[in-house]
């Protein structure tokens, strides 16, 4: 199956869907230990938007994120990412899809401590078959863009948490993915660093045809969202934009 995403002429249009997940059901365990994490959740995110998924712990945010990122199988429902249906796709095809089209930012950064920053950032490019020299040049460019020029040969452990998260952002963007998935990107950071990270992600979300989805329960960052999906007990409770979104943001401050 060809999983290459073709750039549509209407890239950047707020109206074009990046993610369209409908009635997704996902359960873990069997018998008495069975827990239903997603109970028919429907979720959509548009190209060019920074979309937050919020809700209390255990409401299914991370499970939903995992499903739309193609890292977790689901039991029922339909999931389309940039018009490509992930349903019924072979595992290897989904892996291929993720490699080309998805960038990841994790709560704990997940940088490889034994590699230097350039090597960490160049991983997605190498996975996509790019040569070492080109990968490292591109990685250096991204490192500069996130404000860490001059630290190319440092190891992640030599950086602060905020700097590590910047490196993680550079790694997530280096292969120019159309979907960027972020799992609690600011929860391990202080307020000022958190805002710097959100500025970077907002800029990233404005790239043509890109969508940034952030799972968070950090109210400090709600103000950056173009739209917010509220989840509760495995279902989408509300999708906020415009005036309701402003009221929600103000109410959480």
């Amino acid at each position, binding site marked *: 199956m060809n999983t290459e995403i073709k750039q549509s002429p209407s890239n950047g249009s707020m109206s074009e869907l990046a993610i369209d997940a409908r009635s997704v059901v996902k359960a873990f365990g069997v018998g008495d230990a069975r827990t239903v994490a997603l109970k028919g959740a429907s979720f959509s995110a548009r190209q060019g938007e920074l979309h937050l998924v919020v809700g209390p712990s255990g409401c299914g945010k*991370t499970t939903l*994120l*995992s499903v739309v*990122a193609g*890292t*977790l199988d689901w039991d029922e429902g339909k999931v389309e990412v940039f018009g490509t249906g992930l349903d019924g796709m072979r595992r*290897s095809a989904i*892996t*291929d899809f*993720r*490699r*080309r089209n*998805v960038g*990841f930012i*994790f*709560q*704990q950064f*997940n940088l*490889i*401590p*034994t*590699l230097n920053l350039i*090597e960490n950032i160049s*991983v*997605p490019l*190498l*996975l*996509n078959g790019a040569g*070492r020299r080109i990968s490292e040049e591109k990685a250096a460019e991204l490192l500069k863009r996130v404000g860490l020029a001059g630290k190319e040969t440092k190891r992640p452990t030599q950086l602060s948490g905020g700097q590590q998260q910047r490196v993680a952002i550079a790694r997530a963007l280096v292969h120019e993915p159309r979907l960027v998935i972020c*799992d609690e990107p600011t929860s391990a950071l202080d307020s000022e660093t958190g805002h710097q990270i959100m500025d970077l992600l907002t800029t990233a979300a404005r790239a043509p045809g890109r969508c940034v989805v952030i799972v968070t329960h950090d109210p400090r960052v709600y103000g950056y969202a173009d739209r917010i999906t509220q989840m509760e007990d495995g279902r989408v409770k509300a999708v906020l934009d415009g005036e309701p979104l402003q009221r929600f943001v103000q109410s959480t401050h």
Partner: protein
Amino acid sequence: MLRLALKMLLGDRAKYIMLVGGLTFSALLMTQQMAVFTGLVSWTTSHMRNMRASIWVVEHRVEQVNETKALRDTDVNRVRSVSTVDYAVPLFQGVLKARAADGSDKQIQLIGLHAGTLKGRPTVMVEGGDEGLERLRIANNVVVDVLASKRLAAGLGRPLQIGDTFEINDREARVVGICKTEPHFFGYPYVFTSYDQALQYAPRQRKMLSMILAEPKEGHTAVEVAQQISDETGLRAYTVPEFEKATVDWVWKNTGIPVSFLTTIILGFVVGVAVAGQTFYSFVLENLKHLGALKAMGAGNGLISAMLFVQAMTVGLIGYGMGVGLTAVFGFMVRPIGQPPFLISIETLVGTLFSILVICSLAALFGILKVARLEPAVVFRG
């Protein structure tokens, strides 16, 4: 990515050193024990290299070269009468007591050579040269090997030299040459003399002929001549490869030596699997979140398996190199002493390499199975 995989491993110094150390120890144990065993096995047939002959004729029940069942004196002529035999000569071999300078008794391997041809004579003379060998035809003269020159010199303060005397079975033996030999399986020093003189030294028995050394006539192979001797005389005639094989087989069947060495070699393998397997598995577990992140980013199971395989094989090859290197150092250290027997064969090197690669494959496999079952979504679970 494979380069980065290696950097991941090399960056974890503790695990890397533990892995290389474990594999080095395993390779050292397997190679060193195998080399000592091979050396010991080679000693079992050293007799044949010390007294070279194409065909060895023995009593029909003799199973290996270090065993003697006496033949009748007339058997030499029976062998000579075989049409394809060029010539055949008698050989005496026996373990006798010799008296050292300090009066202590030492056991020696006495070899009695046919005086006419000196067939079976030592090939490398350290002192005395060919002239010394020729003088074996004179009564009471002997050529001793280097080991005998040291062992029988107890109380003398120096090794035996040409002209020195000692006693074999209360009879005088005068040293006319010193030769180099491969060590005897039982560790006895070699003393060469003429066949007739050997019969003087040895306690008298009804039959004194130990073996017959024969050579095939031109145009005939040792195999066909040996077969013809066996057919026509009822004696057992071995070619060199046959006698070597029979001797080694005998050691395998009748001594605990192979089992003992094999046990240590297997232990080396098990230690390798345990240390490398456990350490590598723990390395994989510690890197699980990074490997999970790689999977999430689109690294397939094939690529991650290749990364783990390359990591395991790299430490395997380094450990193998270091283990073999240390074994070689051990070999150089024991070489001047001559103990224990030591022989690194190409089979030993290939066998150890294969074992180390199997160990590393198993170690990698444990990790691969773990990572293959890993859901990429695990990276989102904190």
